[in-house]
């Protein structure tokens, strides 16, 4: 394993140009001129906010902060710092009442159930704002999370378009640097902030830096686990990552439909989503 891993180094100017045009194009051609997304204070949503702010006028960029009572104060501060930096007007929608009401009859619910419920609650809030502002919901999941399944199905993984889904977490950090986002957003350890003290890398059991390199070799270069181990990576981590990619395939696909007729959706009824646009 090397410290300078050049395949993951990106041409940030090129990526910013491709992603800003992606946002403009995919939003405008379906008849929208506004975007809405959840702004958590983390690096992914901060990068989405910065990209959106480059494309749309500030009043058309709706950054929604959706804290729960256990969310860390610093997350909110960081999200507000991003808004100040980009001159965006934040909307704060506290999800504590809904979440606490739901779990009031089941206080023994695990942190995982609570976390997933919060992620799905945030999704419904975003889709309500989508209708309210006639704004398209922009996702903030990166390629590392999508491949590892480190997200909530129909929660943070639900959105209309996603500019970051083909960038690994370490590449998102590089983009955050190029977009000169506030330093605290670029340097703090990644956290889903679904419960107190939660840290992605602790929960996953490996660092994004290591995972991203392994994923790049596994997915983009289609190297076998043996070939990746031969590069000096820990075989246990390589196999754990491979298992996660396999186990979470369901999160990346439409629900499975039982085939009965001659043309079944997503199997032999095949159309691009941009059909007619």
């Amino acid at each position, binding site marked *: 394993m090397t410290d300078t891993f050049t395949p993951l180094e990106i041409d940030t100017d090129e990526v910013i140009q*491709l992603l800003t*045009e*992606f946002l403009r194009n995919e939003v405008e051609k379906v008849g929208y001129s506004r975007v809405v997304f959840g702004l958590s204070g983390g690096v992914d949503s901060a990068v989405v906010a910065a990209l959106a702010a480059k494309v749309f006028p500030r009043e058309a960029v709706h950054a929604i902060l959706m804290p729960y009572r256990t969310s860390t104060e610093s997350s909110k501060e960081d999200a507000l710092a991003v808004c100040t930096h980009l001159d965006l007007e934040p909307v704060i929608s506290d999800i504590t009442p809904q979440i606490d009401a739901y779990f009031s009859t089941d206080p023994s619910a695990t942190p995982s159930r609570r976390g997933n419920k919060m992620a799905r609650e945030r999704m419904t809030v975003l889709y309500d704002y989508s209708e309210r502002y006639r704004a398209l919901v922009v996702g903030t999941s990166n390629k590392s999370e999508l491949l590892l399944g480190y997200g909530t199905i129909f929660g943070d993984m639900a959105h209309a378009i996603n500019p970051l889904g083909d960038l690994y977490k370490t590449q998102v950090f590089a983009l955050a640097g190029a977009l000169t986002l506030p330093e605290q957003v670029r340097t703090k350890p990644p956290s889903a902030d679904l419960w107190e003290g939660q840290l992605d890398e602790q929960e996953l059991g490996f660092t994004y830096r290591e995972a991203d390199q392994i994923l790049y070799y596994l997915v983009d270069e289609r190297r076998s686990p043996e070939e990746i181990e031969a590069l000096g990576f820990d075989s246990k981590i390589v196999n754990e990552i491979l298992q996660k990619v396999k186990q979470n395939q369901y999160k990346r696909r439409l629900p499975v439909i039982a085939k009965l007729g001659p043309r079944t959706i997503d199997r032999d009824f095949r*159309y691009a989503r*941009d059909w*007619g646009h």
Partner: protein
Amino acid sequence: MLSTAPNIPQIIDHPGNELESVRIALVQLAPVLGSREANLERHAAIAGELAKRGIHLILFPELSLTGYFLKDLVPDVACSLAPQHWKELQEACGSSTVIAGGVYETAEHIFTNAAFAVTADDVQVIHEKVFLPTYGLFDELRYFGRGTGFRSRMIDLDAKPFQQWKMGTVICEDMWHLRSISLLADQGVDCFLGLSSSPARGIQARKSLGSEQSYDAMTRTYAQLTTAYFAYCNRVGYEDGVAFWGGSRLVLPDGSLAGEPAGRGEEIHTYALSHRAIRRARIATPLLRDERIAPLPVETSHD
């Protein structure tokens, strides 16, 4: 740079100073996916404008009349050579020849990824894509039938002075196969017409966009080795998150670029083509004269 009517991309002229030249326009646009009507209307408006400006040959990108990721839409956007499909564009052509990309439905109801040559009084299919990619993000062979060969076509571009040009058409993936270029070069083409829907891929630091690098190398090499013009017209826009990178360009018969290539947005670039430049290149580097052509496969029969 000239101002243009609404819905017509900016026109950038590369005048050149060749004698006896004809003018070609590369129309780099973002088609609507799956709406032949909307695209045809746009083609007609652009062709009308360029015809008025005295452009002899107007080249559009691959599948410019339909969009690229058609999947099950292929039969829905296909057309034959029947006059009703082309009337609007033919009326706009004036004395220009338009080369547009679309889906051709043969009499046997086979659908091909085709280049159509349209003039005021004629419509022809001048090439059907032979190499249909099925790897990576491509799935063309599932939806299209294969073209059967590479045949050069004589196109009369101007009456005064009489300008006949031998054109060799290739569509996107065709360019990745040396055989396509070599079969057309053996026929002594004057100008390659490359229609493309090339997706942008490759974002590594210190490298330009991977797909752009490849096409830049290919078009310049092909032009230089065949001592012919290479007109490359790529599309722009996004389909389901896939960006098409544009970069349309004309490469001269000595392998050099005629001006800066187009950027990433909708643009029209016009250039001068002259047999004199081909003649000079073939005197300086008589590669075509010195070529030793092996027995030709059946598919290379001349037009």
